[in-house]
């Protein structure tokens, strides 16, 4: 739909007529007029939304390249900050002003599918001969819904690693290589916890593993905590530990129908996190509520912090802090583990120009665009050649992502972000519950009762 006020008067009148027509059936009109037009001529203007302003320039490059190949289509890119993005998308659905194509997130898309707001892409892709097996393993499957239809083409992915402060390590007499082979278990935390304890420093200069350590006056925490308890998935807080215990968030993924928050492996992991807070090795939940952990890391208050690959550039940009990267620890399974989260581009069902919209999605999902994105060195594109380009771009900046973030992809130690229905309700139940364990108000086994509430959402 035309979002530009620069359209000439005639076009505006036509658009107005279209608007008035569509108002009678705001949400309902979903005539699949598309089936025939796939592969046909695409023309006109389409709108594309994304939330990461750091990526807007490179997607503009993609749009320019796309325009060169499809001179009759014009792509208008709009960026909203994350907080406003979803409000605008939802309101756009209701009012019929949503963008033709938009960047979609795994935590949102199941509900959009249920509400019938996304256009299935299968027929178009088949007609255009677009393959979906060209992406990093597993990423494409995430975007096939329960109805067996595909609602997005992968664009990029993220994994989790440890960022560490080189100066703090040096002070503690720890070699950087020591961080590469740490092991963890939920009982005593393994060599990982020993490392965290040793890197923790109080105001009197005592380390966390020394006698006389004052946990009420900690100057540098061995391990940071990323802004909260992580709710039901703990992506950057605890998923890299729980993933090594053999525990899975749901019975199957994607589209599980039962959550496993009642299992001892999970509750043991959460209890271990709580124990770090009690020992003074990790900041309390109260003290990090709502915080951006990156800034605290930038202030030199954390020796190590687990965070996602989308934070790389920011974490390496702080003045006065030399940052290093290490993979997450090896757990009871004998392997490392990282949540694997992917973004995709989706087409809105109400798009007035689906032919052009699909062409643009296909282009965004192609190596032509993803190699460009990779070269810009911001995120990891979903196509292997793009991932390699990104890896090389980071390496050129002196950042070694291959042995930290990408090791999970090469070793196959990733597990997919849990996708189920009722995702936001699960989050709203689990966040306070896990918070309560982190703050010491409840024991980890209290999560069993919450798990029943969560699973009741799927039986009701």
């Amino acid at each position: 739909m035309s979002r530009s006020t620069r359209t000439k008067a005639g076009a505006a009148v036509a658009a107005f007529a279209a608007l008035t027509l569509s108002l009678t059936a705001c949400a309902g009109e979903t005539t699949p007029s598309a089936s025939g037009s796939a592969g046909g001529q695409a023309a006109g203007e389409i709108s594309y939304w994304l939330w990461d302003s750091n990526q807007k320039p490179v997607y503009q490059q993609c749009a320019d390249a796309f325009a060169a190949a499809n001179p009759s289509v014009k792509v208008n890119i709009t960026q909203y900050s994350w907080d406003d993005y979803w409000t605008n998308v939802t309101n756009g659905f209701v009012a019929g002003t949503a963008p033709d194509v938009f960047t979609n997130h795994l935590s949102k898309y199941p509900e959009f599918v249920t509400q019938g707001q996304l256009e299935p892409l299968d027929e178009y892709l088949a007609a255009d001969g677009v393959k979906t097996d060209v992406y990093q393993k597993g990423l494409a499957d995430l975007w096939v819904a329960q109805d067996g239809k595909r609602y997005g083409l992968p664009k990029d992915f993220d994994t989790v690693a440890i960022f560490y402060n080189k100066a703090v390590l040096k002070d503690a007499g720890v070699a950087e290589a020591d961080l590469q082979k740490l092991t963890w278990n939920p009982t005593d935390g393994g060599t990982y916890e020993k490392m965290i304890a040793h890197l923790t420093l109080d105001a009197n200069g005592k380390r966390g593993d020394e006698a006389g350590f004052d946990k009420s006056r900690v100057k540098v925490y061995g391990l940071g905590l990323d802004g909260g308890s992580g709710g039901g998935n703990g992506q950057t807080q605890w998923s890299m530990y729980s993933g090594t215990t053999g525990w899975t968030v749901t019975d199957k993924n994607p589209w599980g129908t039962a959550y496993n928050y009642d299992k001892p492996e999970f509750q043991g992991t959460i209890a271990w996190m709580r124990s770090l807070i009690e020992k003074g090795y990790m900041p309390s939940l109260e003290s990090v509520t709502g915080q951006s952990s990156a800034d605290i890391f930038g202030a030199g208050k954390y020796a190590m912090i687990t965070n996602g690959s989308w934070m790389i550039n920011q974490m390496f940009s702080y003045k006065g802090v030399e940052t290093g990267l290490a993979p997450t620890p090896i757990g009871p399974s004998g392997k490392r583990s990282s949540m694997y989260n992917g973004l995709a581009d989706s087409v809105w069902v109400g798009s007035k120009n689906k032919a052009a919209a699909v062409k643009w999605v296909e282009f965004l999902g192609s190596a032509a665009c993803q190699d460009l994105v990779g070269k810009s060195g911001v995120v990891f594109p979903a196509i292997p050649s793009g991932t390699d380009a990104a890896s090389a771009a980071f390496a050129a900046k002196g950042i070694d992502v291959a042995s930290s973030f990408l090791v999970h992809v090469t070793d196959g130690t990733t597990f997919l972000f849990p996708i189920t229905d009722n995702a936001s309700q699960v989050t709203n139940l689990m966040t306070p519950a896990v918070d309560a364990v982190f703050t010491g108000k409840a024991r980890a086994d209290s999560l069993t009762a919450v798990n029943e509430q969560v699973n009741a959402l799927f039986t009701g």
Partner: protein
Amino acid sequence: MFIAPALLGFVVFYLYPTIRGFYFSMTQYNILGTPKWIGFDNFARIGKDPLFWNALWVTIEYVALNIGFQTVIALVLAVLMQRLTKSTVLRGALLLPWLISNVIAAMVWFWLLDYQIGLVNQFLEWTGLSRIAFFGDEFWAIPTVAFVNVWRHMGYTALLVFAGLQTIPRYVYEAASIDGSSEWSSFWRMTLPLLRPVLAMILVITVTGSFQVFDTVAVTTRGGPVNVTRVIQYYIYQKGFAEGQFGYASALSVVLFLILAVMAALQLRLLRAGESDLA
């Protein structure tokens, strides 16, 4: 007719959406689907919803703190403004916080009050006190949110009171000072009663306004930790927009609306806002 334009604006942009909202509160309605009539089921569910009662309680705590401090401080500031100086610069300075948005005010204070790198906590530690997790601690979180809002609104509210003070004719004070009453007693005997219409208005507006607190929580604690800052507006937002239960969220809004209506009516009656002692 004098009220015609306002009436038009009222009917189109307030009355109609409100009636629609009342209708939705009786339905099971996902924002993108079609509403399904379920009568009073939503309201029955609210009665049994512990999170609603928690949200209501948290909100009341917030409103009490916010209104208490804000009204007293605003009164003091307004009287100070009137008595001490006519300086516009000073008046403007006090209004400054109101020139920035809630969101920014919250972010600035969040940064200043941060447990680890916030200036206030560095100062606390320097004075030998222990650090306080202002936004995260169960005890401090709501007072802190209230503080941020008092900070942003106190100059503004003071200006409203001040405007009210200006309408009190000088002869009233003169009569008082001829009677030999002190400034203190004439404040209680004269100023405060004469301020009644304006104060009533300010109270109604600030009370209803603070029941709708949202921004400050949304950009700082997001309702946590656990549920300590989940104020009612934030709960409505979570239900309506995040979980897509628009019918239930509308019912919550209706309950909030009714509570506010009762409170406003009470306030107006108690303060007899309709009359001025002068007229």
